[in-house]
């Protein structure tokens, strides 16, 4: 009888310990969940920016000066007449535009098939070739998904 009591007590203690460990584990997981969500958002954003870098590197709009650089003259040409030929490059996107930041100026719309659910953007150099050099400003390359 006494032995049974001891076994019972031990079982209760073990049960309580397991419960406590489960509660602690849930608490820890909930703390970590926030971090995981933040990391997922960041990864999504970085993937979108990588895609934008690829768009900026398209030969139809990039300048020969260097990476993450858009040739303003080429971009204006795409905006005016060439946009439909880039449909394959912009597959999966709703719209692509270049918003001038410095110096200020009108946006250059490279592609537009409607309003987007989510828009990602990255900074690019918007350059224009002068007689012997490039004159550059800062712009945002925006892509709507």
């Amino acid at each position, binding site marked *: 009888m006494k032995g049974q009591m001891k076994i019972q007590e031990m079982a209760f*203690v073990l049960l309580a310990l397991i419960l406590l460990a489960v509660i602690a584990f849930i608490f820890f997981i909930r703390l970590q969940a926030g971090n995981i969500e933040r990391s997922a958002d960041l990864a999504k954003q970085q993937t979108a920016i990588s895609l934008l870098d690829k768009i900026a590197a398209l030969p139809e709009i990039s300048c020969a000066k260097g990476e993450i650089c858009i040739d303003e003259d080429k971009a204006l040409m795409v905006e005016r007449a060439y946009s439909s030929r880039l449909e394959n490059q912009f597959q999966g996107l709703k719209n692509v535009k270049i918003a001038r930041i410095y110096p200020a100026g009108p946006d250059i719309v490279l592609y537009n098939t409607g309003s987007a659910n989510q828009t990602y953007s990255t900074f690019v150099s918007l350059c224009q070739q002068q007689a012997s050099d490039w004159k550059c400003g800062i712009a945002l390359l925006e892509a709507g998904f």
Partner: protein
Amino acid sequence: MARKGQEEIAGFMLIVAMVLVIGLIFLFFLSPKSPERTDLQLNNLLYAWISTNSGDKAVEQLVRECELGNCEELESAVSILQTAIDKSGMSNQIDGWSINITNTVSGQNYVYREFGNVNMTGNSRATALPVSDSIARLKVFYP
């Protein structure tokens, strides 16, 4: 005798609970902070700024002039970076940022400007680009 045993078990459970709670608090507050991460967006911004013309000269050229002793124009070119951060809406998502241009040979600090709250212990991201003999470092502090 049985009462004594029960007290011992209760005491044991209390100790285990305390150890667990202390362990969790330790894990929560003393977990290693993730190292400062670089960011594609920041990298693109710094690259765009370095290539941007302030007047007739690119910022890259102003860094070279600063290495020769004339840093006034480079100092004022920081306002272009501030405009880019404000106009892009990035300033709404961050607490503060800093730009630092240092000569890698002499260690001389040409430009160091801070905007907003940069004494945060929270998340921060940074990027750096070499320009001539110097290095430009942009750091952003997130809430």
